């Protein structure tokens, strides 16, 4: 299912930010390169709406959808959350960075270690 959500979001992101899509339009785009039922697309878009990744707008009998945030905005949000996880002391352990921020002393020690291995 994650792969389908991604395909739907890619379709929405590839259009103008203020363009609203019907499920039928998204289904047509996805059906071009895979065998997929209309109702499946509808379910996926409903779930994306529940996760607040897409916005829903009523248009007569049908709903129209568009991405709540652009790909770039969502990426920035993801990285902001990630850096928060790294920097907030002992309350969290969901994510651990390869290396956090380094003090001047630590950077000096790193350079010294490099020098000891025979490079500057």
């Amino acid at each position: 299912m994650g792969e389908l959500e991604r395909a739907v979001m890619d379709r929405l992101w590839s259009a103008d930010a203020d363009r609203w899509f019907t499920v039928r339009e998204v289904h047509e785009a996805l059906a071009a390169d895979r065998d997929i039922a209309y109702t499946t697309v509808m379910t996926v878009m409903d779930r994306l709406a529940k996760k607040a990744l897409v916005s829903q707008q009523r248009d007569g009998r049908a709903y129209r959808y568009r991405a709540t945030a652009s790909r770039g905005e969502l990426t920035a949000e993801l990285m902001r959350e990630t850096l928060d996880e790294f920097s907030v002391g002992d309350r969290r352990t969901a994510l651990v960075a390869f290396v956090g921020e380094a003090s001047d002393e630590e950077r000096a020690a790193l350079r010294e270690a490099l020098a000891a291995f025979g490079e500057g």
Partner: protein
Amino acid sequence: MTPLLLSALAVVLCGPVPWLLSRSPRLRRAPRAAMVLWQAVALAAVLAALGAGLSLVTGSALGAQRSGHWYGVAVLALVLTATVLGRLLLRGHQVGTRIRAARRRHRQLLDLLGAEDAGMLVVASPEPVAYCVPGLPRSRVVVTEGARASLGGEELAAVLAHERAHLRARHDLVLEAFTVLHEAFPRLVSSAAALAEVRLLVEVLADRAARRRTGPRPLVRALVALAEGVAPEAALGVGGETGRSGVGGQLGGGALLARIELIRDPGRHRLLAAAQLATAVALVVLPTVFVAWPWLASLS
């Protein structure tokens, strides 16, 4: 006397022992054994605290004499056991739920935004960051474009070896367990020191795996590349040198220094490892024997 002994043992294992261990940086030179020792101390402390109440039950079932002291000791042991059990269950549930929710949300976004490439997920962000997200059925190693741009092939291999070592050894579970201990008993016991030390040890172990894979030089170069790059305003936000606990990422001040020193230490330290492992076994056996002893004695 067993409940009293076990209570005393629990107190010693909660306070002075972790305090002493965290002030013995030499132990880290055999990091795998040190990790076992820390887990043994935590396990033995919990066993002793739970055993205090349990031995009371065995004691009374075997018809121990009940003097005036007995009731005092009984109340003490039962309170200790009930408190430890209750807090561990409650915090264990809370921490587990919180961590899993954070990771689930993170994975959802990653799977929408990341580009799969040679076993890692690449995120289009200039922040030079690398980390892993444990999860079933599939864990993810995340590298930003910023990080990939600042790393050469060997350095990238070192980073990936480091992160995969975390995932393979399930370091996330060890960290989760010690986070639970710390949140269940944030004061009085040395749980903060234990958590900080275990956090350092998982990094040291992952560094070792990376060093085995690429040698020390690419690993240190990767550390340099990624440590230099993180946005400075985040560091300034918590206030320069005085705010060090927040600045060093998850690890408090000096943890990176310790990592560097250990990356430069090629020794195997077998004797130190053996001593730590023997201590670990003894620590876990001790409370178990205390609890079982009245039963064994009554059989003979």
